């Protein structure tokens, strides 16, 4: 991955404690999995930054390589990759996500 793209992704992830790469926006998610993660974050009352990968093809591809993770959405907390939709839902169910978020 190009250094500039890597730096850009790192900068985005570092811009907020909780950061989500998604398809669409929190108000208008463009895929069911992205919508699912925003629903979880909303239900927990979490403030987060987000990036719409549909608006930027280089980030859309770059983020998969960055995390070695094949799909989007991707959730980060304190710069750490947490997982995609299924993991976020499962961790919210078990209470593990709330712990990570410091709630």
């Amino acid at each position, binding site marked *: 991955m190009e250094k500039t793209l890597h730096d850009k992704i790192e900068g985005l992830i570092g811009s907020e404690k909780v950061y989500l790469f998604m398809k669409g926006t929190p108000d208008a998610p463009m895929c*069911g999995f992205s919508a699912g993660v925003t629903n979880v974050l909303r239900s927990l009352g979490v403030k987060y930054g987000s990036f719409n990968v549909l608006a930027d093809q280089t980030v859309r591809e770059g983020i998969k390589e960055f995390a*070695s993770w*094949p*799909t989007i959405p991707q959730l980060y907390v304190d710069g750490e990759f*947490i*997982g995609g939709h*299924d993991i976020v839902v499962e961790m919210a169910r078990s209470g593990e996500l709330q712990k990570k978020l410091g709630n």
Partner: protein
Amino acid sequence: MTVQEIKEKIQTGLPGSEVEILDPYKDGVHIKAIVKFSGFSGKSILEQHRMVYATLKDELKEEVHALGLETRVS
């Protein structure tokens, strides 16, 4: 890539695993894999999912948009 092929790929990559594929719309696209595997023991959910994805490495170069995943220790 058929549902059956995905199932076989996972079972080959994680020997001894039990794999169930749900295909609720019968479209072979919006599928969910439920994987039970003894080797998940002691691993985080993230690591468990990574292990399943690793078995589908070639398939996932093309974005499998809607592969849901549920992993359990068997």
